[in-house]
């Protein structure tokens, strides 16, 4: 029986899709059967970040509307045998997502996977609501920046009221804070809020601190989840977050920007 985890934030551009790809790939690297689902109907992007954009045939909406079977729409990752991607439609609008349709697909996936990772769109409308509705746990992606923290707080309110677990009076959706684009140097100079500051405001358990890193853009350029770059700080931070998501106790470390030695810089490949 799979665990359903929503990656959400309210605010756009904070790293939801990057984090979905990284956490999904990280779980698959640890041998967990994982599927990542794009809920951003009309603005499909998880396929690009995962590097499978040229192989999309059918999508989530085709499955909901009965035009394709689920196993025809699932794309198997070519690097990790335990990872699958369910892309969304690029042409339909968000009304094509129905609660019943989403529920049916998730129930079918639950039997075959250990983890179902739902990549929420920005905002708090239909797509975002349905991405979180069936979740067991939530990863709230937040930048140490005022509007992002405010939106995360709003999303935490929705998680505790507008989800199936809330409506049925079951155990609440378990929230995790994933702090992204964290710049330890700017924090030291007092230009950016500290981890402790954000934690004090949102008061939910910390899943990880992802440092601001050039590796993230490089990974998205080539369509490789950043966690596959195990030499990078961002990749290491995501790998730690994956361990915590699996329930392991790992010491929290604040990784800085990557500093490469002279030799490394000279040999630094452009990809």
């Amino acid at each position, binding site marked *: 029986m799979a665990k359903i985890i929503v990656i959400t934030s309210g605010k756009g551009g904070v790293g939801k899709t990057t984090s979905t790809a990284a956490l999904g790939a990280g779980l698959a690297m640890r041998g967990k059967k994982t599927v990542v689902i794009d809920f951003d109907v009309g603005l499909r992007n998880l396929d*690009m970040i995962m590097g499978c*954009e*040229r*192989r*999309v*045939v*059918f999508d989530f909406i*085709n499955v909901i509307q009965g*035009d*394709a*079977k689920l*196993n*025809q729409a699932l794309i198997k990752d070519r690097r990790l045998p335990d990872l699958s991607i369910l892309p969304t439609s*690029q*042409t339909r609008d968000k009304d094509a997502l129905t609660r019943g349709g989403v529920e049916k697909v998730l129930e079918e996936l639950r039997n075959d996977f250990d983890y179902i990772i739902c990549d929420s769109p920005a905002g708090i409308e239909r797509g975002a609501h349905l991405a979180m509705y069936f979740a067991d746990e939530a990863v709230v992606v937040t930048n140490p920046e005022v509007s992002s923290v405010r939106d995360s707080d709003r999303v935490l309110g929705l998680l505790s009221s507008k989800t199936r677990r809330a409506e049925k009076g079951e155990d609440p959706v378990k929230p995790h804070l994933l702090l992204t684009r964290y710049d330890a140097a700017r924090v030291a100079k007092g230009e950016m809020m500290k981890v402790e500051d954000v934690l004090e405001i949102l008061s939910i358990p910390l899943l990880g601190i992802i440092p601001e890193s050039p590796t993230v*853009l*490089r990974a*998205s*350029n*080539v*369509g490789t989840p950043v966690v596959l770059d195990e030499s990078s700080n961002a990749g290491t931070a995501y790998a730690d977050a994956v361990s915590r998501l699996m329930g392991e106790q790992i010491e929290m470390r604040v990784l800085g920007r990557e500093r490469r030695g002279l030799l490394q810089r*000279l040999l630094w*490949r*452009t*990809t």
Partner: protein
Amino acid sequence: MTLFGFFRRAQAPSSAQTAKERLQILLAHERQDRSGPDYLPMLQKEILEVIKKYVQVTSEKVAVKLERGADMSTLEIDIELPGPQTASAKPAAAASAPAFAR
């Protein structure tokens, strides 16, 4: 760093170059697709109808694979056909044919 640019040129393209190429290929396809209907579900349905005239297959036994390229795309349709003894559980034959390119 320009001194090392000479050595770099021989290596794989930069990630920025890869990003640009991926976008160019994808967007060329998406702009083209935007004008027409989503034909793949219909195509699959019709192919299945034709096959069903001759062999007993269900839609689960049809796998449609697509690989979009810059100059050419390939659409591969795998249809798992039932074995000689239709009653037996395990189908033995699988027909595979690259259907068309555009």
